[in-house]
């Protein structure tokens, strides 16, 4: 498959709703499954999905924060017996902290890696 072709050639079935149909890449040249107009209509338009509403996203994030706080809170108020092989594992919120920091670090390091190792998509061709 060429890298640009199928996407730019994809037929615009419903421009008003921002829909486009994907080209069929297939398992060996089967006919494409073009959506019927009815099927297409059932799918929310671009920007209208539940997960696309900024307010909903904020709700999700706040819910996430709440759960996070709750999990650390369990540590804080010793709601359960915390058990680990090492002493540091029993610190309050150790895993939370470790998870957060290591993820941020991983991303930041990876961004640096990109400077070294990123090449054009067709570098080897």
């Amino acid at each position: 498959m060429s890298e640009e072709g199928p996407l730019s050639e994809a037929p615009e079935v419903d421009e008003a709703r921002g829909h486009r149909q994907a080209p069929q890449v297939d398992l060996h040249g089967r006919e494409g499954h073009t959506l019927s107009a009815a099927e297409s209509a059932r799918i929310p338009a671009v920007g209208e999905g539940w997960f696309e509403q900024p307010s909903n996203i904020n709700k999700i994030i706040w819910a996430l924060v709440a759960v996070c706080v709750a999990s650390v809170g369990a540590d804080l108020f010793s709601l359960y017996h915390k058990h680990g092989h090492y002493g540091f594992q029993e610190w309050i919120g150790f895993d939370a902290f470790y998870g957060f920091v290591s993820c941020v670090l991983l991303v930041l390091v990876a961004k640096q890696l990109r400077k070294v190792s990123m090449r054009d998509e067709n570098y080897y061709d």
Partner: protein
Amino acid sequence: MTEGAALIDGGARLAAMLPPGWIMMLGALVVPLLRGPVRQGWMLALPVLGLFQMLALPLGSEMSATFFAYELELLRFDSIARAFGLVFHSAAILSVVYAMKNDSALEGSAALVYSGSAISAVFAGDLITLFICWELTAVSSVFLIWASGNERANRSGMRYLIVQVGSGVLLLAGTIIHYAETGSLAFDHLGLVGFGTGLIFVAFGIKAAFPFLHNWLQDAYPNATVTGTVFLSAFTTKLAIYALARGFAGTEILIPIGAVMAVFPIFYAVIENDLRRVLAYGLNNQLGYMVVGVGIGTEFALNGTVAHVVAHVIYKGLLFMSMGAVLYRVGTVKASELGGLYKSMPITTLLCIVGAASISAPLTGGFVSKSMIVSAAAEEHYTVVFLVLLLASAGAFLYLGIKVCFFAFFGQDRGFRVKEAPLNMLIAMGGAAALCLGIGMFPGTLYGLLPYPVDYVPYTVSHVVTILQLLLFSVLAFAFLRKAGLYPPELRSTLLDSDWIYRRMLPWINDGLAFAYNRAVDRGLGPARGLLSQVMSTVERIHRPDGVLGNPWPTGATTLWAAIMLFALLLLSY
């Protein structure tokens, strides 16, 4: 109907005489002769039949054959082999269901031979049998890559084949040397004790994708067909883990190797754009856990390794299946081009989330298996390794699970409106998801299959909460980085990895040497080269059909030769 039943009965009796895996390998040969639903049924029947056949074997069964002077142990049925056999069969069944609509006979046969040979390898009791199966997996699996039919896949497949066959050659060489050193071909615990076992170790290491030996994986898997990658993800590397666990359990060097393996692919996974390649990096990262488990080598650690193999094959298969479905429907799995597919493919989305969660979340397979390895590291006081694995857990969950789900199904809607994945794919994914959850919720069954008795209890409040903290804050970190604009954007790109060494550096060196050589030749080695080409052309000239040696002489000449030879014999004897 009764005839059919009799046929099935006869077939079953025949099959019962074969070692596990052979049913699939032999049955695969028939696949090209069948068409349509018959073929689909046949392809599904083979692994199911194989599974039943394996389950019917009592533990401790053996089967051997004589090959030259060597006694080959085709079947060694112990608990570790049983666990691998079980998960390989399950993976084969799910993958076949997933690939049901793929009507390429070549791909179907190759996939079955590949699965079958991987299963046979697990039951191999000696190194020769292992080698044969080892090479068979290499040779059969490459067709799953070549079946993509494009230039990129062709070349990638060739690189893959060279690496895999190379691994087999090392295994053979190691086996021969090991045999010369010890006189034994048995595939039991080997340990790094000599040059022979060293070569075998490297051979296993290549297939297990050790750091710097890993890149065939990320190179080849994303280039295979939609269905081929699902097969590939299940067998090759896990076979290598099995081989390591069998041959090199407790070899300490494996621990640092595994630790590095668990971390470095994450960096690549973060910035890689092709989501199937992201999964390949993730595969590599999870192999790291297993290698660490083998390296620790205690019963507990080995149990953890086997358990993690079981869980990992299933959930990684599920993730590859969901990305395959996306590729099938949308035509790309590049993160930079995808988004918002949850609207079009809600079921796939849900199943993909289950797969992502199964990496470590409670109630899933990854939770009950991976934690055994991490705990084993702690129990044996490998503190640094413990912390590294913990970090990798958080990273893997985030950048494999979240990233794949988020960029493919949520994120910015790119407007693709496609159909939900085909039914057979959904069934396969659903089956895999059910297994993930089943293992996670009822770990006792899994633990019962492990090679050693298990007294590990995964579901303690402490464990659940701490893991939840780790995972939740990973997600929080992701949300934070996205909001803060620190998260690297998805870019269409190629990332340099160790494959750069053989795809770029070696050719450069080669070109440089060729240049130097040509210069030297121009300066005065010309005559030598001329001589060489002259020799070559002379060889061709005299062997060509019109040359002296390629052309039948007239009878007189042969007669003369007969006389000459007679004379020579007489001369020699006098």
